[in-house]
């Protein structure tokens, strides 16, 4: 994707809110021009008044002083309105962008998000979206405003005296385009280095803090501290380089603005003598030159943001443009009626599977069968494909070689949602949302009553600790269920599975990551959960293994 294509796509994304966006641009242009006009008219006014005073002629001063007041009000009120409108437009875009992106992403998950598994990368994704939030306010708006107002400024000044207009135009281009481009180019190298150095500093510090006991015991604390200080100094040296480039850029732009004014003064003086302009117009044009640079002052910042915004947009578009790994069938076969007829048997026949872009097959020629109500276990070393089966059963990937069928229907012919309707999952990787415990439970069954919630928590053994919380079910869970122990979180997942009450239950290492005592007590809840269900159990826990009808070993 070329940069231009990215920009065009970004602008297209802004289309639904084009009215707000254009009003924002219009207001910005008006405010900017009002300010320049205010300065120029004021200059012209005092010159005209002085000239009239010297000549002793009368002058209509009501109109210009009225214009000055009017422009002053347009300037300030316009600025306030502009800020409100542009911010509103930004937030509208932000909401739209998130919604759009989520809708693009939803059909892809989880298979399409495979490379974003770590929370680190997800945070980067998040940062990318936030970067785009600023596209309108920081980049599009100042650039468009400059593109509209600079020709206007040029035309007005050219109408009076072309040489000054040309000098002004060149200077505007130099400060608005050439200088920022030079700064961006010069700081490219340091900019690339800085993220490495930031990472180094962070890890040096985390090592020093997490390993403090050991470092102290071996007397290596000073050594680590020296390393931290060194990383900090290296980072700061690069930051200084970047700042120096910026400071040079800023002072260069100050120099251009003032030299342009100086040059204009000489040109205009010549023009007065040559009779090209009147003397009052000299002052007006001089102030116009000084004021005109406001049109390009936000451009360096826009330039600075442009590269990172385009990179962020590219990453997001690439992600959003992926084809879903599993295409939903055109005519989905219904399976929800099968459970009540006791026909929900699962058959896996000669199944082989290789993840997209993976070199080695995750599964090869695997077969098993579970009748409805049977309980089976899958064992095998890590990497033997147990979790792959869980992914495939949930309809996250298509089965290419071999087949999985449920109730005799190939799951490739089932709608993903219909399939997942029949399945509950309890695993170590299950997630709790930043929401109340109640909301997390209701996710499994939005229609559940309070009694049903309480009953599920009771069986899952979660009721005691929930009741002990001051806000009970309404307790807010922080980031990934922070505030709950591993055992408590697992119990909530068990309660979710109870509430969903689907005929098929998949348990993927349901006791993994729990300490021995908690493990024992959670197990009791798992027995309850397994009753009357078709169970596929993935575990190494010998006690759980005792409870199944058959054990399949993967290799």
């Amino acid at each position, binding site marked *: 994707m070329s940069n231009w294509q990215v920009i065009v796509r970004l602008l297209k994304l802004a289309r639904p809110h084009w009215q707000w966006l254009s009003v924002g641009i219009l207001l910005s242009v008006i405010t900017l021009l009002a300010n320049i006009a205010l300065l120029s008219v004021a200059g012209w006014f005092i010159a005209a008044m002085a000239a009239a005073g010297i000549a002793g002629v009368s002058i209509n001063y009501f109109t210009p002083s009225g214009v000055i007041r009017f422009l002053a009000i347009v300037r*300030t009120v316009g600025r306030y309105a502009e800020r409100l409108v542009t911010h509103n437009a930004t937030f509208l875009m932000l909401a739209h962008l998130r919604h759009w992106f989520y809708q693009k992403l*939803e059909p892809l998950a989880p298979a399409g998000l495979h490379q974003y598994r770590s929370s680190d990368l997800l945070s980067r994704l998040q940062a990318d979206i936030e970067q785009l939030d600023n596209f309108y306010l920081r980049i599009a708006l100042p650039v468009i405003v400059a593109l509209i107002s600079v020709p206007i400024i040029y035309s007005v000044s050219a109408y009076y005296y072309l040489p000054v207009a040309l000098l002004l135009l060149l200077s505007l281009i130099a400060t608005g385009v050439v200088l920022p481009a030079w700064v961006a180019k010069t700081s490219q190298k340091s900019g690339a280095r800085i993220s490495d150095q930031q990472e180094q500093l962070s890890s040096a510090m985390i090592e020093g803090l997490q390993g*403090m006991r050991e470092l*102290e015991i071996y007397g290596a604390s000073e050594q680590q501290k020296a390393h931290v200080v060194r990383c900090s100094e290296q980072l700061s040296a690069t930051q200084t380089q970047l700042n120096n480039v910026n400071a040079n850029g800023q002072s260069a732009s100050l120099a251009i603005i*003032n*030299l342009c004014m100086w040059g204009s003064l000489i040109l205009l003086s010549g023009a007065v003598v040559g009779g090209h302009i009147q003397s009052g117009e000299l002052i007006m044009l001089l102030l116009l030159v000084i004021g005109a640079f406001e049109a390009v002052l936000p451009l360096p910042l826009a330039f600075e943001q442009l590269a990172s915004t385009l990179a962020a947009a590219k990453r997001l578009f690439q992600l959003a443009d992926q084809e879903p790994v599993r295409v939903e069938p055109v005519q989905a076969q219904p399976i929800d009626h099968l459970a009540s007829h006791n026909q929900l048997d699962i058959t896996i026949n000669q199944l082989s599977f290789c993840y997209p872009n993976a070199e080695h097959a995750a599964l090869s020629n695997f077969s098993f069968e579970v009748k409805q109500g049977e309980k089976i276990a899958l064992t095998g*070393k890590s990497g033997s494909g147990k979790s792959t089966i869980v992914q495939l059963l949930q309809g996250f990937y298509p089965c290419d070689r071999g087949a999985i069928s449920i109730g005799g229907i190939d799951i490739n012919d089932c709608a993903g949602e219909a399939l997942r309707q029949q399945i509950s999952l309890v695993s170590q990787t299950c*997630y709790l949302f930043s929401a109340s415990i109640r909301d997390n439970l209701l996710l499994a069954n939005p229609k559940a009553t309070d009694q049903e919630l309480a009953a599920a928590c009771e069986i899952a053994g979660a009721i005691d600790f929930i009741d002990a919380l001051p806000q009970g079910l309404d307790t807010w869970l922080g980031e*990934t269920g922070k505030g709950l122990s591993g055992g408590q979180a697992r119990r909530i997942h068990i309660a979710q599975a109870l509430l969903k009450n689907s005929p098929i239950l998949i348990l993927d290492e349901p006791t993994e990551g729990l300490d021995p005592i908690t493990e024992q007590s959670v197990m009791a809840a798992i027995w309850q959960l397994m009753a009357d269900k078709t169970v596929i159990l993935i575990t190494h826990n010998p006690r759980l293994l005792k409870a199944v009808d058959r054990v399949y070993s993967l290799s």
Partner: protein
Amino acid sequence: MSTKSDKAQLVASKKWLKLQKSLAGNSLTASVVLSIGAGLCLIGQSAVLAYVVNQVVFLERQWQQLNSWLLLLIALILLRVLLVKYTEKLAFKGANKIKLQLRETLYQKLQVLGPAYVDQQHSAALAQLLHQGVDSLEAYYAKYLPAVAFCAIIPLAILAIVFPVDWRTAIIFFVTAPLIPMFMILIGLKSEKLNQQHWQKLSRMSNHFLDVLQGMSHLKLFNASRAEAAAIAKIADGYRRSTMSILKIAFLSSFALEFLATLSVAMVAVTVGFRLYWGELDFAIGFMMLLLAPEFYLPFRNLGTQYHAKMKGVAAAEQMLEIINAQPLQTGSSLFQTGQPETGNSASGTGQRFEIEYKNVSFEYAAQRKALKSVSLKIDQPDMYAFVGPSGAGKSTLIDLLLGFLSPSQGEILVNQQSLATLDRKSWQQHLAWVPQNPQLIFASLLENIQLANPNASVEQVKQAAHLAGVDQFVDNFKEGWQHPITEQGGGVSGGQKQRIAMARVFLKDAPILILDEPSAHLDAETEAWLKRTLKAYAKDHYVFIVAHRLHSIVDCNAIFVLDDGQIVAQGSHTQLLDSSDLYQHLFAASNTYNERAKTEGTADE
């Protein structure tokens, strides 16, 4: 928390921030001086410009006749450009100095506060504060503080110059100037709060989005993922509505400021115009007034834009101040005054005899949280000693006390009848070796990582220790062998290998006392069996303390201490405890599941 103490905290952190200015040396002051010089240049520039324009427009001079004035003008311009450039650079330099020193100071203070404090405050959060938090002070020192100084000086300077030449304009400035800070304070007070709400809302919305992305496959499982799209749109729109209502007010402050400034400029222009018309004023002066009017208000407007730099700086300072003011986690006697341990410093710890006694030792982290309740125990033979119990029973606290990172709230720990609290921490720790759950490697070569334990050891000795620990089995896997550089986060060394490096350190240091925290947690069966054999042999002539969850690794211990809720509830050998302690039985039964599992898995998690 009451708002009063919040306010006191805010005031304290603002004060502290200002105090740190001295760390920058002269750079910040020099930067402010230069920026004032630049401001004066600007005033001079306006005067010369007004003079030249007057000469051309009203006295009909040609610009060639004004050469020297035009040269003066360009000289002033170039001087100002230079001054502005160095103002920026110096301000940044000063801010940078402060940042570097603060980061070092904070890190040093954390070392003093010790690992128990770091654990409590979460190392990742502390690292974030020391990195990004300290960096956020840059804008405070390099932008906000100079803007404040500029605000205090430039308007006054302009006023001082304007007053003698045109007192009427000076009065317009003089009357409107105090209105500006007044408006800023009035509206600023309200908008500060509103602004905070705005940022909170923004981060809440961002977090929700991240949350949904992270839990997407879970949402899919409940077929709730499509419905979530509507929720995302709703939350973002709600954010927009509430933020806009906040901004309507928050923008008022800058509106008032601009309104005043612009109106005053217009007023100056109109009054100057009339006085010129009536012949009461020289045009050069009038024009200069018009040029200076916007510059008079500019510093105030700049200050407004640095508002966030200030907010962020103060917020970071509040957290830093917490660290600076924190007391090391200790009560009672002062920790480890100078003094030498009785045993002296013999070259080898093998066979050295110690008597370690906990006498009614209690420890509390905070007023209500008793981690240890009057624990007593005595050890005098070299052997393997184990501490078991459910999590939160106080095992780690007991060990941290022995390591010297904490000192008892009540009671004392005696080493050879001498209170540990009277020993120098550094010299006491020379008798200790420590292997944590996840051994830490430092940014150096593999060899140096082992040598760490005894910097005086020869390369031969290091390799000998490495051989005992089995490090030489895998050293050839690395391209650079012993010189293999350990980069970030233990780069390229597996959990089992780390444990072997940690054991090599133990052998090299040969300290009489070895403490291990859950040594077999991340090991494969083979390494675990090796470690068990090695420790057993080592315990013949060393004191070995093991904190364990997985009880099968300590069944051979002669002395096992069972902790529950901060107390030692039972002690004895494995067989004795199986008979006498319900808790131990329970722990053992539970941990057996782990055992069997480890066998079925063959090689356990890496």
